[in-house]
């Protein structure tokens, strides 16, 4: 067991100014419930290095999702700040923040949310369109991504008509289309069976190991703790413990494109997928 503050110092000791990607500084988060304020996050300080695979775990209600939302720019902390590549994201207005954060990172949620009138291909292409690409470029890129997971045949279905496992794969592809540096995931396997769960977690590991992307996953599934370079255990809104799986972790820069996953031998067992 390593004390919170010590562990952070351990991390800080290993960093230099180039590899420091996310700094969470003294964050408090209160939620107003009826007339009371409930403190969900207590003075959390966390530093994440480029190329890390962080798993945030802990019992339900410990504040792990809230912490992730704070990092993603979705939930403004009551106190404290979050620096992304050295920039204070909550100093920006909502729109600037959304644009800035979406350039750097992506969020995969437990449940897949869709624009229901669009088909699979169009939903995957949506972030690309939002970033200003035209329809042709976006469709092409989305099709390449579908091809990556050999899901082309689902391109013209409505996502809501697909199984949970299929939806989560498409959700992942949509999250990856902008080739993000940081991938955040909130219980990404929460609704999946074991086969699908293994696939999703393998994919995250590949993204981290082969493409050197920073990955932060919130999960309460203890089976995956070994995937992480560092495990953060939360309790009652505090970081209760930190496990350094790779005490000698060396920060790395992202390499290649998401589409390069194929070169790195992404294993797809199709029969399992279409469940």
């Amino acid at each position, binding site marked *: 067991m390593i004390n919170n503050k010590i562990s952070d110092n351990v991390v800080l000791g290993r960093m230099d100014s180039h590899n420091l990607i996310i700094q969470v500084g003294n964050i408090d988060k209160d939620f107003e419930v009826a007339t009371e304020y409930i403190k969900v996050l207590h003075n959390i300080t966390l530093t994440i290095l480029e190329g890390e695979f962080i798993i945030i775990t802990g019992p339900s209600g410990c504040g792990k999702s809230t912490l992730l939302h704070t990092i993603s720019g979705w939930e403004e902390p009551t106190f404290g700040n979050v620096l992304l590549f050295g920039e204070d994201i909550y100093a920006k207005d909502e729109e600037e923040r*959304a644009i800035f954060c979406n350039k750097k990172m992506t969020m995969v949620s437990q449940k897949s949310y869709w624009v229901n009138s669009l088909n699979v291909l*169009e939903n995957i292409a949506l*972030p690309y369109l939002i970033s200003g690409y035209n329809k042709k470029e976006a469709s092409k890129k989305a099709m390449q991504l579908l091809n990556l997971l050999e899901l082309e045949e689902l391109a013209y279905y409505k996502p809501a008509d697909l199984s949970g496992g299929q939806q989560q794969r498409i959700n992942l592809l949509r999250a990856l289309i902008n080739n993000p540096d940081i991938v955040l995931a909130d219980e990404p396997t929460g609704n999946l069976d074991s086969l699908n769960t293994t696939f999703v977690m393998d994919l995250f590991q590949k993204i981290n190991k082969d493409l050197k992307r920073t990955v932060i996953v919130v999960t309460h599934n203890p089976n995956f703790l070994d995937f992480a370079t560092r495990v953060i255990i939360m309790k009652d809104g505090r970081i209760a413990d930190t496990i350094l799986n790779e005490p000698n972790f060396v920060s790395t820069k992202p390499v290649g494109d998401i589409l390069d996953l194929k070169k790195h031998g992404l294993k797809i067992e199709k029969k399992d997928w279409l469940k």
Partner: protein
Amino acid sequence: MKISQIFFLSLKNLADRKIRSILTISGVCIGFGFIVYLLSLGYGVEKLTTDQISSPDTLSIFEISLSEDGESRAIDDKNIAEIGNINNVEHVEAAAILPASINVGPVKNDTIVKAYTRKFFELEELKIINGRLFIEDDSREVLITKGLQKILNISDNESFFPALDVKIMTNLALSPTNESDDLILIKSLKVVGIIEDDSPSVIVPFKTVRSSIDLVNYNVARVKVIDANNLTETRRQVEKLGFSTNYIGDTVSQIKSFFNIFRFILMGFGIIAMIVALLGMFNTLTVSLLERTQEIGVMKSLGAKRKTIWWLFISESLIIGFLGGVLGIIMGNIAGKATNTIFNFYALQNGGRAVDFFYTPIYLVLVMLILSILVGLITGLYPAKRAVKIKLLDAIKYE
């Protein structure tokens, strides 16, 4: 996100909720259609009325007549020449109208003789429904009205048009050298045409009358002006010289102001229909906002700007408004044409005449198109503003 893509997304969304979209667009369509239908009726009836009393040419012509109190100046050749010298006057032509009786074989009837030149005939824009105009101003040919044709029971077949004798009662005011109430007979005038008029009268070539009667003064003259826009000024100059004038445009503008009120009332009914349609449209957009709250969350989580979210709703309401407007204009027109056709069918069956009493001026179409866009914009403003304000996390968790 490009505006075209936002519109595409809105179209997809409307297509995804087909029945509701169709119902909403139909509502707007009925509102616009009703307004277009009623206003076209208003314009059509007005056009029908004013067209019957005036063609564009008519509006450049005014009439000089003798006032009833006898105070106005006489209309004679000298005075006509004087009027002809006024700027903006293109032509002045006089005519005489005299009481008379006619004989066609044994049939005798009282009537009115109009001594017209060909030019005057043209200026009065009389319509020949059968036959032709007399060839020269001194021909021994006449035209009779439809009214007189009926009384005399003359066939429609030109080759059976009879010849007639007229006995014109002279009038001291017009022909001082003749004795008052003298009856001057002009024999065997060949009927060559029928004109559209229900009152009984005969149009006799001017010189043919003058060769029998010493006409010095006339009772009517028509002035054609060069520029109809300055007609009022020209008319004032003529009146200053002591003549009494009439202008069909006076009647036209009275009719126009009546129809303005008429249209206003019709529009009132249309606006009520429109308000009902707009409430429906507003309701649809508000429901759409609730249904799509999560989608707004998705869009925001993917980095969509406020402007994108705003346009997403505005474009949807613009599409509904515009489609409803365009379809409404088309439907209003079709309904008008259909009503017109049905009406004419019965009118013709009952011996009436086919008329167009629906008319949609092009500017009405343009105004309606602009209105449909405005309606879309205004209805979309509130839902769009609400959508922009929703917090990302609240939206994405909204079920």
